[in-house]
């Protein structure tokens, strides 16, 4: 996949300290076009598609927001809660700003937990971007499959 001018600008914006303190890439030194192609293949290999992933994430986000910060149990299996901060955070692809909402999901009885943000959902939905290999808010497709489904 080519690095268009938009991708180049987005890659710049994703470095630590530009939009968020640790950035969206972690220590991943690949170009975002490569990260995206890789993850698209991974999603296909896992038998998932982007619509079901983002719908599932939005489902958990809605449940968590209902508790406005307090833990909510979902379907007896998951415990979720939301954390919100003041202000808005811009998308590195410069196509919008999002409320600062973090959602924490934990599978009951296991140590597995996952954290994602409203912006993170947008990055997956519109840009097929799960973030760099060890970025703090990276949503590994495998982790998603294991924990959220």
């Amino acid at each position, binding site marked *: 996949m080519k690095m268009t001018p938009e991708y180049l600008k987005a890659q710049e914006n994703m470095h630590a300290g*530009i939009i968020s303190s640790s*950035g969206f890439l972690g220590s991943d030194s690949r170009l975002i076009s490569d990260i995206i192609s890789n993850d698209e293949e991974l999603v296909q290999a896992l038998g998932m598609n982007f619509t079901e992933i983002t719908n599932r994430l939005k489902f958990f986000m809605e449940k968590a927001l209902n508790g406005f*910060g307090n833990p909510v149990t979902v379907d007896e299996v998951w415990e979720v809660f939301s954390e919100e901060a*003041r202000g*808005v955070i811009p998308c590195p692809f410069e196509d*919008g700003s999002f*409320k600062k909402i973090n959602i924490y999901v934990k599978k009951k009885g296991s140590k597995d937990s996952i954290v994602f943000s409203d912006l993170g959902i947008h990055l997956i939905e519109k840009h097929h971007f799960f973030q760099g290999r060890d970025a703090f808010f990276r949503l590994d497709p495998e982790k998603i499959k294991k924990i959220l489904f």
Partner: protein
Amino acid sequence: MDILTFIVAPMVLSLLSGALAFIIVLVDSLVNNYPDFTIDINNGRKKLTAKGGSSLLVTLSSQGIFIPSACGGKASCGACKVKIESDVGVILPTELPYLSEEEKKDNIRLACQIKLKNNIRLSIPEDLLYVKQFDATVESITDLTYDIKQIKLKLLSPDSIDFKAGQYVQLIIPPYGQIPEKTQRAYSMSNTPSDNQHAELLIRLVPGGLLTTYVHKFMQVNEKVVFTGPFGDFFLRDTKAEMICVAGGSGMAPIKSIIYDMYEKKNFDRSIWYFFGAKSARDLFYLDELKELERLMPSFHFIPALSNPDPADNWKGETGLITNILDKYLKTVIKASSPKEAYLCGSPGMIDATVKVLNVNGIASEKIYYDKFA
């Protein structure tokens, strides 16, 4: 090709490039050399003269008028809205995501995207004309919980700030570490207006947050910081109504300022009910101080509630969602017939849920005041 060619060719290229570069510089100095323009604010209330060429946001701030901005002018926060009364050209694509249809009709624009190329007339909320920039030093950094710090700033110049309890400031930190530009974020002041040589802020660490990470990991006592303020419409209304306050975590800041201000002014006529919601005991702070205030000010009632207490907490107080506790008190403890006002500070979700409970219990939305996070 003779020796002469080796000299002539590069020389010609250099001379040519030089000549063209000179022309570019000439045009640049002519084209980008803006004269001075007049800025008319609020129909002549304030008139400024400034050199053109920069954005309205930057130009105004260089003249001491501070329009709120969280992103420093990159068109990614939408906080710098102003009403333009003269012609500044069509709305730029960078502004569109932040303007509603009504705002577009009303000529509301983003100050950071308007380049000063002509005389301009605009309207801004009157309060903004009193906003100043302050140099301050960090007097103390205190841990309140595992993720909230209390930062007390001592003002240097100007050395005092005139604000209403409940207002906020925009804290500005310089570039640090990997962050190439300065960052600004809004924080409510938790000190009282009488303590006008300080700005006390409650700052919770946000994962990945540019400013909160700095405050929690790098900020040192005696360090110099800059902030602008005061901003905001969240303050105590001058009535005799009973007050219902709901805020958790760092949202306590403006409420604390308002309540202690009332204590200082001996405003004991109004009953105050402060519902402080948290998840577990590790999220609680200022318990002793607020219980002490309860003792000194019998009109003040402090109700902390945990929604998810840890067994080890040994929590004896209220348990459950803060909105349920609020509902319980409104129905059983607080007099139903008295006129009431509500002051809320927290996330949009918490505020919406609280407003619903308040409405159900007879408190109209016009009497509910809040400082919504986003």
